[in-house]
């Protein structure tokens, strides 16, 4: 069953087209990442899904219903906004207990969710006294109060330190695995999404450019990609670039990804060791089809742009 269905969604702000004929589906129990550059239309899409913005055209259904001014959907959905704001002068635990009463769940749940995000020590603190990171954690606790079936989060890990990020991603995985909570996560931190998402929708210029399960997308877009790991990526990449069947080389600190002409993957396995020897680089590994989500995103977007 699809929890979210968006068909031909469109939204413009004056002359600026924010979302242009966007199609999206999120299935029960899945963790879907919404990825795209700044201004791609991610937040506008999420706001339309949450019933905060009315689409100019198209249809959006959440749990099969129109999300605009729909309290039924709110009872089943947890929401984490990019910038979380709550009534500032109330204490964290007191406010969450209020939220428990709003949703009709036991007030003890308030402490449970604070503990889930490691905020129990701030339970007696006013919301305005929380740091940006703590406020983000509080927003996540707030979204978990009523044990929703779906959590929609816009840049959920923004403002969090690496430790908190990894704890949060673990929490996402646990909730998804144990309680079958579905997630729609928008983020620009692609390595994080690749850790938790089973499917992604790549959005650019207000449209979904590619979507589906990660494995399918890798099969479709990551063909002809070979990942080389080395201690001297710059030097070795420069040599590899000179090979006539190499289309593109994308270097990072640990190595580089080589896009080769289709069918030439085997040749690079033969050529790279020799080149590494020549530039005195230590070859740590060569493997096919292990493109990162970032590369997948780049390929999907550049492929569309070429078309």
């Amino acid at each position, binding site marked *: 069953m699809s929890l979210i269905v968006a068909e031909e969604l469109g939204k413009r702000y004056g002359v600026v087209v924010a979302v242009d004929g966007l199609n999206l589906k999120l299935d029960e129990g899945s963790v879907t990442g919404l990825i795209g550059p700044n201004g791609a239309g991610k937040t506008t899409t999420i706001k339309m899904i949450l019933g905060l913005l*009315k689409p100019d055209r198209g249809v959006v259904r959440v749990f099969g219903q129109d999300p605009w001014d729909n309290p039924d959907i709110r009872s089943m959905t947890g929401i984490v906004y990019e910038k979380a704001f709550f009534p500032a002068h109330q204490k964290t635990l007191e406010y969450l207990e209020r939220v428990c009463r*709003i949703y009709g769940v036991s007030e003890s749940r308030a402490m449970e969710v604070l503990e889930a995000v490691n905020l129990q020590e701030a339970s007696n603190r006013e919301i305005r006294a929380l740091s940006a990171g703590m406020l983000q954690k509080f927003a996540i606790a707030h979204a978990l109060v009523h044990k929703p079936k779906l959590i929609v989060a816009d840049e959920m890990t923004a403002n969090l330190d690496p430790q908190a990020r990894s704890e949060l991603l673990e929490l996402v995985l646990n909730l998804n695995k144990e309680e079958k909570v579905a997630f729609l996560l928008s983020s620009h931190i692609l390595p994080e999404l690749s850790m938790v998402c089973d499917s992604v929708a790549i959005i650019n210029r207000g449209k979904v450019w590619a979507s589906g399960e990660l494995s399918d997308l890798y099969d479709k877009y990551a063909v002809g990609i070979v990942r080389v790991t080395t201690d001297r990526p710059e030097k070795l990449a420069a040599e590899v670039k000179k090979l006539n069947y190499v289309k593109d080389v994308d270097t990072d600190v640990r190595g580089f990804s080589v896009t080769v002409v289709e069918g030439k993957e085997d040749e690079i396995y033969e050529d790279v060791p020799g080149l590494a020897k020549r530039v005195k680089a230590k070859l740590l590994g060569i493997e096919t089809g292990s493109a990162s989500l970032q590369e997948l995103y780049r390929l999907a977007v550049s492929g569309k742009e070429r078309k």
Partner: protein
Amino acid sequence: MGKGKPFLEVLASAIHEDFRFPFLELFAFLYMLGAFALANFSVSLYSQVSTNEAVAYVVTTSLIGFSLLFFLILVFKNIAYGLGSELEKGIIQTYFSYPLKRWAILTAKLLSGIGVSLLLFLGIQISAFYILAPDIVSTQLSTIMLTYAANLSFPLIISGIILLLTLQLGRGGIGLVVGIMLYLGMSIASQIALLVAQATESALGVQIISMFSPNYALQYHYRALVGASSSLWNPTLSETMLYIGGSYAIVAALFILGYIYFSRRLNL
């Protein structure tokens, strides 16, 4: 889960924010100051006041005097600053994540911003009345209620305009400035209308002003004018009621527009 509970919780949260320390204490003190210390019961100033109803009107108006100004400040603060900043910061967006219809969220905000302010204002006013002039309260309750109704409609009209501007702009600052300008403008316009009415011996200007601020019609009805001729216009009680009803129709229209906008059009 009780159906009314989410609404009551959002209302309680709104009241917590709107009346956090020291606002409730400060305004309760100001209302008491206005009612007990700043009220002027010198009915003798009004030479043409002759009936008991007119005396009750004059006493009530004197009692309302400064407190109405404090009421205005509190309501403007709650709508423009309270609702406006909550829209701007995204707290309303957070309220939208709760299982409540949009109209219920706005009702909670308005009940907190205007309803509680009004209760506080009327509570202290009526208590002061019972202490200061119990005989007038017991014999002229309907005149007193009518006077309160006539005095409160204009501040509510301005509040409705501030609400619409705040919702449309998504912030309260401009709404607040426009509200204060409108209030001051209306005060100046009414004085000009009174002068013009005197000079031209035509009550048209005062009648127009009375549509928005029906206290003027009531003032003419009870002949409670200081240094002005009341022979210019002598509206009957029914006509005065019509002006009061008309002004509340404007209040209702403004707030209904606010509700429609909030429920159907407000994009966050």
